């Protein structure tokens, strides 16, 4: 039987007119790299669940994408990361929300699936759980990118000027 894999790196922030060629090249390279991380698992006979985790970890590590170290900032000026993993064969699932320090949130989601009877853990408790699992943690500087910080300032200024928080521009609306 053959194997198949697909990945995405977001949709809502894309405007063709605003992506510079160099940035587009980095994005395409990042996508190709992440795809290969997942495909390598499948090529070696590994499980689909391990393959999607490997691919998502690569995307989380790449500041081009809105997850992990490329994550956007909330209205209080810090990241709140979310992730999920689900195994179709067993319907086992794990998710996390409100993480601020976990380098690879998808690994925390996988640990929720593996080590707990629950589906979702959130915020400080989820972070303590990830730490107890031995997952790598980072300080706030790791998750700071100038591009995302500038996008936050732009959006906060727009809202302060009377803009509707639910009607953000395509550039900052979602990742």
């Amino acid at each position, binding site marked *: 039987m*053959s*194997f*198949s*894999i*697909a*990945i*995405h790196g*977001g*949709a*809502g922030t*894309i405007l*063709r007119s605003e992506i510079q060629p160099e940035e587009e090249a980095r*994005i395409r390279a990042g*996508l*190709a790299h*992440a*795809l290969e991380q*997942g495909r390598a698992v499948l090529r070696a006979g*590994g*499980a*689909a*669940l391990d*393959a*999607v985790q490997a*691919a*998502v970890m690569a*995307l989380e590590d790449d500041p081009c994408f*809105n*997850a992990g170290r490329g994550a*956007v*900032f909330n209205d209080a000026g*810090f*990241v*709140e*990361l*979310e*992730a*999920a*993993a*689900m*195994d*179709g064969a067993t*319907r086992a699932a794990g*998710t*996390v*929300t*409100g993480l601020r320090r976990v380098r*690879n949130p*998808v690994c925390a989601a996988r640990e929720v699936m593996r080590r707990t009877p629950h589906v979702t853990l*959130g915020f400080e408790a989820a972070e303590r759980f990830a730490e107890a699992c031995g997952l790598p943690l980072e300080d706030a500087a790791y998750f700071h990118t100038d591009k995302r910080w500038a996008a*936050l300032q732009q*959006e906060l200024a727009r*809202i302060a000027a009377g803009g509707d*928080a639910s009607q*953000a521009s*395509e550039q*900052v*609306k*979602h*990742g």
Partner: protein
Amino acid sequence: TVGAVARDAQGRLAAATSTGGRTAKMAGRIGDTPVIGAGTWADETVAVSATGHGESFVRGALAHEISARMRLAGQSLADAAEAVVMQELGALAGTGGIIAVDRNGTIVTPFNCEGMYRAWAVDDAPPQVAIYHEE
């Protein structure tokens, strides 16, 4: 948001999604990614990972909706995904897209906005990397 779906050589499906959410989101906001069935879903029929306006994916349980259309209405993956992204997501005033793979290894990547960063491969065929609709 980023995500991945896969079918392995044993025919098992899986999905994973990870996100920073939305710029200037209210602190404490929970999006569709960690809501199973909204932004992430996998069963024995299909695996789905979504990106876009999270509240719309939550209100429509859209990742699970693709599976429901396939299992209960006998739709193909392509038809189910097209209906969910081009009709149901839009009806909920949402933009974004999904990636999905079914038990046969078929891959789809529909989206209703200008572009979606995406890539896919089957076995050792050359990888496909795309952003815009025409790719």
